């Protein structure tokens, strides 16, 4: 019925063909907005743009929706046991609640079914061109954009369409980041990035070293504790391992109770430390390094099981890796261990290959765009990046409000150009703003945000935009 599985780009219908770019025809899509990616952020961008009366074309390189949360996709980072680390109220879209008979922390397969229901409920699939990847996005006169696409994998001819606006929602958890270590090439054991970790069977019976104490690293360390013959867990520093439940409630809900009471950060930190001391206790007793920062100063790690397995001797905490030898790994404290498998849970890097980095304010090519609200680029009022955030909560409500703000901005560009111009000034003035308290190692956590700080800023931006 719907042509959406055609591996092509929408055929130009009544719109005019104007030969422009490199002698190829460019089909003019009029006021239509282009959305890149049909993951969580792309879906909510489509839904909100359509709700505000815009036509949308979405390009998705995979053959299904859900982006990284669809385990069938080859770039998906999820593994068999992935569960949410933020509880339901922080994860669901604000206008499409998850079923309340689901657990506090749903499984990734439930999340995918949630996105599929969202797409069906709002009839979004008909606007998605599956199996199509975006090659280039270039600004053209009139603050419009030429988007060049082709079939995923580079087959078939390239096609270019012209759009009134572009939402970049290509995700940031698909391009693995591998740190450089001396001697890594000569290491004879198996090496794996967490992105290719799918199933605990990959660890069974092996001596495993897990590098990295992000949420993924901790999850894998816990699974290694259950499956592997030995598990070392290497971390650069001490962290706060927050349990997923405090006082019988999801920890993030307890935390937001304090936020709602508007307690200052210092008081919340003090309460948090005190609660952790009462429940988890002194981590140095377990041989874990003492955290060198206060809680809320790094991306939160929600894992109730890590400390438990350390206490059972199933996980041996070790310091950072110094270098690799043929058969052994040398740690910064001089010790040598001999793992058969090293899993690097060292994170991912955001990438926007189809876009000139300067457009996102990344003049020196560092891979770190400089935007306002992590979404708006100065000088490009018809471009928005959705979901380029690392919040201390679920991401999807934040993407939702980003795209609502963008849709309202696009509406006002037509009805109240003065308002839109004032917004553009605000973008230029606020570029690079941060939305969290002090963050340890903030160059690494450059897109870390506190959900309350961030949403408050978005709310302010929306009120300023629409002030009568």
């Amino acid at each position, binding site marked *: 019925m719907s042509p959406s599985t055609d591996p092509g780009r929408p055929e130009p219908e009544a719109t005019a063909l104007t030969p422009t770019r490199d002698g190829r025809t460019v089909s003019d899509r009029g006021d239509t907005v282009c959305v890149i990616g049909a993951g969580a952020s792309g879906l909510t961008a489509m839904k909100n743009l359509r*709700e505000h009366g815009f036509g949308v074309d979405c390009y998705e390189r995979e053959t299904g929706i859900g982006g990284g949360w669809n385990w069938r996709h080859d770039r998906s980072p999820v593994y068999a046991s992935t569960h949410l680390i933020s509880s*339901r*109220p*922080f994860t669901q879209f*604000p*206008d*499409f*609640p998850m*079923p*309340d*008979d689901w657990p506090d922390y749903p499984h990734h397969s439930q999340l995918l079914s949630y996105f599929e*229901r969202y797409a*069906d*409920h*709002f*009839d979004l699939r008909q606007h998605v061109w599956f199996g199509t990847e975006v090659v280039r996005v270039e600004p053209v006169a009139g603050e419009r954009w030429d988007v060049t696409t082709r079939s995923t994998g580079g087959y078939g001819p390239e096609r270019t369409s012209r759009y009134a606006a572009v939402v970049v929602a290509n995700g940031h958890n698909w391009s693995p980041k591998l740190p450089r270590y001396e001697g890594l090439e000569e290491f004879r054991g198996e090496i794996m990035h967490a992105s290719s970790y799918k199933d605990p069977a990959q660890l069974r019976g092996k001596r495993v070293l897990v590098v990295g104490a992000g949420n993924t690293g901790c999850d894998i360390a816990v699974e290694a504790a259950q499956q592997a013959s030995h598990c070392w867990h290497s971390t650069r520093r001490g962290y706060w391992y927050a349990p997923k439940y405090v006082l019988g409630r999801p920890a*993030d*809900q*307890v935390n*937001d*109770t304090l*936020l*709602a009471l508007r307690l200052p950060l210092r008081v919340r930190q003090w309460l948090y430390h005190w609660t952790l001391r009462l429940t988890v206790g002194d981590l140095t007793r377990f041989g874990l390094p003492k955290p060198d920062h206060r809680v809320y100063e790094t991306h939160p790690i929600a894992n109730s099981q890590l400390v438990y397995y350390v206490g059972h001797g199933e996980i041996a905490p070790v310091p950072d890796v110094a270098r690799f030898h043929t058969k052994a790994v040398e740690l910064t404290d001089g010790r040598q261990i001999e793992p058969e498998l090293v899993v690097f849970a060292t994170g991912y890097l955001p990438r926007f290959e189809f876009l000139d980095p300067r457009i996102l304010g990344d003049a020196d090519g560092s891979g770190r765009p400089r935007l306002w609200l992590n979404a708006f680029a100065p000088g490009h009022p018809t471009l928005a990046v959705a979901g380029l955030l690392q919040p201390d909560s679920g991401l999807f409500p934040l993407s939702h*409000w980003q795209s609502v703000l963008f849709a309202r901005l696009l509406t006002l560009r037509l009805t109240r150009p003065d308002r839109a111009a004032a917004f553009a000034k605000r973008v230029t003035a606020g570029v690079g703003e941060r939305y969290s308290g002090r963050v340890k190692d903030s160059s690494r956590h450059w897109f870390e945000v506190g959900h*309350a700080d961030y*949403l*408050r800023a*978005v*709310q302010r931006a*929306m*009120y300023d935009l*629409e002030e009568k």
Partner: protein
Amino acid sequence: MSGGGERVRIMRGREWARPVRPARREVLSALPELEQGRPPLLFVPGFGHGAWAFAEHWLEHAAGRGFPAYALSLRGHGGSEPAPEATLRAYTHDVTQVAAGLPRQAVLVGHGAGALVVRHALARYPARAAVLVAPVLGDWGTLGAALRRNPGGTLPALVGGGLRLSRRQLFSRELPDAEARRYASRLGRAGRRAQWQLLTHRSPEPAVGHPPVLVLGSPDDRVVPPAALTRAARRHGGAPLLFPGMGHDLMLDARWREPIDAILDWLEKEPGPA
């Protein structure tokens, strides 16, 4: 009690920190034999009523005209889980839960105080359209009318008892007495706190997605005064559709067919979110 002036609220600390506890919900439905691409309707009964009130006539009738029709019982009503401490927020949660669980974007139809619940739900779910049937939107005028016409049923509610509606408030004289009695005997009670919130609630936040809203009722409704109907319709930029001679319970009264046909006609004409 103004509707449109409010601004969208992004910070929802209480909803994040204290989500509504789930409660088992009764949902009745009647589906058309052939899927015709029409939006699903979700009927939300008012205080004291359950999904049964719509299952009597309206669900089947809507399905007969090609609309998938669903009705829920708010917690504490009908076949849903008992909930004496329910609040307006919990009722709103029940509606958004059922609406988001439907296969496609739904039209919310609220009757009586259910219309107030629908107005709150519209701020948390982008409905395709909304219909407010004999809406009790909770103001002092409605309370005055209720006190005048049914002091025995209304006064206890003011001191924490259950709000009781009499047969004569709900139905016209055209409805055979036996049926009126049967319906009246099925009436339950809303939560005490929710009853109070009819008067004390904060005005609903703006609806998401600009759904078109239809208001209808009866000038002879002995619960909702005509002035309240006009006020409700004006808030959504229209005039109420009126069905003279009918009681408050338009879906159960003798001439139940007229209002539901008017709703379905409107939905067939309505081009979608305004």
